[in-house]
């Protein structure tokens, strides 16, 4: 939860709703370019959505024309360019602030093309006049359920750790689910004042298959009557303190124990409120609230299970104001589902459940921009993240009032898909360690990133020597990222599963936020230039070696340590190399400089001379000193120009009718397909499939700590794979049972692969 929007109520206490002063740039950000507004007004919260564009700097590399005179000793030049990207903004606040917010928007909105605002939710009608008057926009109402489903599809498709199961007594309480590549079909149980049960079969096909009138309104209404407590949150508080067994008639109250022949234990509720029918006594508010909560949660859970069974659906998501992040109701619903399905179905909840309606309404209004055609990624710098709502941490949910929650999503350049060579895409978890679950690892890595922050700030400033305000911006970056690290320390689940990768991503997002597109660009440029000078020499000395010596030397350049290595399947690899060449190798590369030029390229060269085609894959955007796609393109062109063997690569790849390098996604977020400008999904899938399938890729090489150890260490591929890395972190080395600078050389052949080399691969 963003604390930045806390209401300043010191100024005036009686008209709080009118007096808040909003920090302009922190909540309704990028309003000046905003268009396509949508609003979802619920019973207590308003969710506003708009589309905007963000101008930010990107680092570009451009090859010097080496044919002209005035040759530079540099291979390429770096320029920082302005780029405009699309961003979706979603803001959630209490209905009490709606007027103030509308005023603020009116005052800051520059774009005048906007004529309508899409609206949904029960309150849309009530506030229609106010919105039209304040904003001068026509309110265009959209069906609530349609918006909800559209929003749900959108978050499931675009946010990797959107869904989670809730386990009250586990640490962490939230267990995120890897989204199945195919999100359909699923059941959405929306518990508002009543319950709607919707079966969603595809993007456009959904059906309300049932519902129930016993829902959140029943808990609230009946609860208010029974306990004289007015607020929903307070009722939940009461319930969390009560003992339902004082009010409910249990099996043991009837049987004296369990009903054994049916396997019903004594603690089961036989009749909700059954004791208040017979016992002539006073019941405590807490006990009644608890009994009511169980009655309603169990009833909804039971119906949901009956519908899930009838329609043969196993994915059941719960949403609506009854759920909305309340641990008490998530727990009782989870319990009920577990009970009625004997653990076969898990109740799933969504991190951005509160935004679904607003997202859906926005998408309805933005159909002509075709937002569903793109992939969108959660911007960790601009999103509040999932707050902990544990009663212990947040004794009164009231504390939430006055805070604004935000979600920002960036349009990604390319559609992201999984690598087709994964053995099982649905169970593929890129990250080796889940820092949400592993408290020790979390502690360590949060410390690491915090410790490294000064260095990053320095490098950021140094990367923009001609910009005097860089230091100031870098300081803002430091504060923002440090705050994120603090948040993650207390709420490691804020953005889904916490991983080293997500910590890196968060840092990149924060750097971008403050216009430091590539702090390492200068360093990389330098290293590349130097390394390139030694390329010819390195190749020459390798060629002088015997075949077997050369194979080892090629690997040795990468790994720099004597055998035996921590993970060492070099012998198997060597045996394999004695066999026929691979058809096509897909090589995921890591760092700039020596690593790519003197390590990877000679290795690639060797593969090429064996007759193996090679496809190189790199990041599209900057991450530390990783070689980016732009840089790689220039580097390989340069190397191809001076090395006849690599020439082959270029020619060969050009025949594939894509640009010279094909960069393929392995990890959903980090590696992006980078061969065609904005391919449509079908086109992308086709290209991706073409490269991997038509080139008959039968070897995947993953190099570097980030790709081979932090991620993909356990990834199972459907073809041969080689993972190579030096563990440059003593803690991690220790975790994996080695020492600092231990080497991982992991050559794997998929199980059941009975190639003609299997005999050779078995150690004799």
């Amino acid at each position: 939860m963003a604390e930045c929007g806390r209401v300043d109520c010191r100024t005036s206490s009686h008209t709080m709703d009118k007096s808040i002063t909003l920090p302009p740039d922190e909540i309704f950000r990028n309003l000046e370019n905003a268009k396509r507004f949508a609003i979802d007004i619920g019973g207590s919260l308003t969710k506003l959505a708009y589309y905007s564009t963000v101008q930010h700097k990107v680092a570009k590399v451009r090859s010097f024309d080496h044919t002209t005179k005035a040759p530079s000793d540099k291979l390429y030049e770096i320029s920082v360019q302005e780029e405009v990207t699309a961003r979706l903004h979603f803001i959630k606040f209490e209905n009490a602030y709606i007027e103030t917010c509308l005023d603020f928007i009116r005052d800051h909105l520059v774009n005048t093309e906007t004529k309508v605002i899409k609206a949904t939710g029960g309150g849309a009608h009530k506030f229609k006049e106010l919105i039209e008057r304040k904003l001068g926009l026509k309110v265009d109402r959209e069906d609530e359920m349609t918006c909800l489903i559209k929003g749900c599809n959108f978050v499931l498709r675009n946010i990797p750790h959107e869904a989670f199961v809730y386990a009250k007594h586990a640490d962490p309480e939230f267990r995120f689910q890897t989204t199945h590549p195919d999100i359909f079909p699923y059941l959405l149980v929306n518990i508002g004042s009543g319950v709607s049960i919707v079966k969603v079969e595809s993007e456009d096909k959904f059906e309300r298959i049932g519902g129930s009138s016993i829902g959140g309104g029943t808990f609230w209404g009946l609860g208010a009557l029974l306990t004289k407590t007015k607020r929903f949150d307070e009722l939940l508080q009461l319930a969390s303190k009560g003992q339902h067994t004082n009010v409910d008639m249990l099996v043991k109250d009837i049987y004296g124990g369990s009903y054994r022949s049916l396997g019903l234990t004594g603690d089961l509720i036989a009749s909700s409120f059954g004791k208040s029918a017979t016992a002539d006594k006073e019941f405590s508010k807490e006990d009644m609230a608890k009994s009511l909560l169980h009655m309603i949660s169990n009833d909804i859970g039971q119906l949901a299970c009956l519908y899930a069974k009838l329609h043969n659906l196993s994915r059941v998501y719960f949403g609506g104001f009854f759920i909305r992040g309340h641990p008490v109701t998530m727990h009782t619903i989870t319990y009920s589902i577990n009970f009625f399905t004997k653990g076969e179905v898990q109740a799933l909840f969504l991190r951005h459940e509160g935004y679904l309606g607003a997202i859906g309404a926005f998408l309805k209004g933005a159909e002509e921009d075709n937002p569903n055609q793109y992939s969108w990624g959660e911007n960790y710098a601009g999103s509040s993240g999932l707050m902990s709502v544990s009663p212990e941490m947040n004794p009164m949910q009231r504390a939430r009032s006055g805070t604004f929650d935000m979600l920002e999503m960036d349009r990604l350049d390319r559609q992201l898909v999984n690598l087709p060579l994964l053995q099982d895409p649905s169970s593929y978890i890129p990250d080796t360690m889940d820092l949400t679950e592993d408290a020790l690892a979390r502690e360590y890595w949060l410390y690491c990133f915090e410790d490294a922050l000064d260095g990053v700030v320095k490098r950021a400033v140094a990367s923009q020597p001609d910009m005097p305000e860089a230091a100031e911006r870098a300081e803002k970056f430091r504060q923002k990222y440090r705050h994120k690290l603090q948040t993650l320390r207390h709420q490691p689940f804020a953005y889904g599963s916490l991983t080293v990768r997500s910590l890196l991503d968060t840092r990149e997002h924060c750097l971008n936020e403050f216009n430091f597109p590539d702090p390492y660009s200068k360093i990389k440029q330098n290293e590349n230039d130097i390394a390139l000078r030694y390329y010819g020499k390195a190749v020459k000395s390798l060629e002088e070696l015997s075949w077997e010596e050369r194979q080892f030397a090629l690997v040795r350049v990468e790994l720099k340590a004597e055998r035996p290595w921590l993970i060492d399947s070099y012998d198997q690899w060597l045996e394999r190399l004695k066999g026929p060449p691979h058809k096509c190798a897909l090589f995921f590369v890591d760092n700039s400089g020596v690593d790519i030029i003197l390590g990877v390229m000679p290795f690639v060269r060797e593969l090429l001379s064996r007759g193996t085609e090679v496809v190189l894959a790199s990041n599209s955007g900057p991450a530390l000193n990783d070689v980016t796609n732009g840089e790689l393109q220039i580097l390989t062109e340069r190397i191809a120009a001076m090395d006849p063997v690599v020439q082959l690569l270029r020619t060969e790849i050009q025949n594939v009718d894509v640009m010279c390098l094909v960069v393929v996604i392995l990890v959903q977020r980090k590696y992006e397909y980078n061969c065609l400008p904005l391919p449509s999904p079908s086109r992308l899938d086709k290209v991706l499939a073409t490269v991997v399938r038509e080139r008959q890729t039968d070897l995947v090489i993953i190099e570097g700590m980030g790709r081979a150890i932090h991620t993909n260490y356990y990834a199972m591929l459907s073809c041969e794979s080689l993972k190579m890395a030096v563990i440059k972190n003593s803690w991690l080395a220790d975790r994996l049972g080695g020492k600092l600078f231990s080497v991982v050389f992991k050559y794997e052949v998929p199980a059941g692969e009975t190639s003609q080399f299997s005999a050779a691969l078995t150690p004799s």
Partner: protein
Amino acid sequence: MAFNGHGNDDDTTDNDETPTKQPRSSKEMSGYFRVEPNKEAAAPAGRATSDRQMPSSTARRRSDSVRKTRPPFPWFGMDIGGTLVKLVYFEPRDITAEEEQEEVENLKSIRHYLTSNTAYGTTGIRDVHLELHDLTLCGRTGNLHFIRFPTHDLPIFLQMARNKHFSSLHTTLCATGGGAYKFESDFRKMADLQLHKLDELDCLIRGMLYIDSVVSSGPSECYYFENPTDPDHCIQRPYTLENPYPLLLVNIGSGVSILAVYSENNYKRVTGTSLGGGTFLGLCCLLTGCSTFEEALEMASQGESTRVDKLVRDIYGGDYERFGLPGWAVASSFGNMMSKEKRESVSKEDLARATLVTITNNIGSITRMCALNENIEKVVFVGNFLRVNTLSMKLLAYAMDYWSKGQLKALFLRHEGYFGAVGALLDLLHTS
């Protein structure tokens, strides 16, 4: 009786969310059929009311009895539920002079006490209108009486049994329902009575089939509502429960059990819900201060639930056409009570009515889903929640018909709450 989700989420009990705590879900139960061939004779088949050849036993024999296997009088069947104790008593009307002479004083006194009164103590009641006449059971002809009293008055009953030296007549008393287990030791200690405990669902089905088979004259045992969706023309009509299988049997007591019945001895408990008669009365007591079921029903009959519930039209101004929801459908039970003003404007009668409607519709909704999942079209509702509760019966009839588009038929039985006790009585006659 019904067992819904166990709701205890205390730290201690939460850890054992083990399958043992869970009821047989329909999944587990599918393919599970209770077949008890050795008790085949225990369930009266078809319309047979004639004598049956009973297995011999060690029961005391009456010297003058031709039927040496017949248990001694008095013949009782008992069902001790969470709220009510149901007692059926067979009064022999073919007692010969010789027999009468021999009849011990205690037995005579019990017979006279039960048959000459219609109320016992302050809370015991004999449902005279349900009495079945000239019934032949085990070769004896007589009347079957139906008596009920609250479970919390069981100690009074036991005291009376003790005072009347009930134990001198009998050594076993057939009883079912949870109370047969819970109070077993009380029966022994307080009244020197040994209970023969029986499964309540076995008894329920056996009793229901038996009563339906023996009622031939007078009002039909089974009935339904014609034109359930048209309040002006909704009429109760007799129904012949021939070829009843498969049927969904919904027993609404304190809680609800839903059974899929394929034959006399072949059934499974599909599911249950804790939102039952106990919930209706419990909530009514808390909301209105009433104290009896009759009072709660009386209030409900005078109230208006639409002041309490939020209807579809309250939200959408009319029908929610996109999803085929009519404006009159309840969108949120008690939904209007979220508003303070509306809470202050409703009457106790309105609240009682809303409670009744909420509980009834919910049972209807779960029942309908079970019927769909089990592929059964005939639904029989029984249990004491339906006693003098035409309101709920018509609501159920309506709900079944409307939401299934006429596919499902809701059936009701006159002796709605007594089948468990009847089943227990039959067991006495067939196994003693």
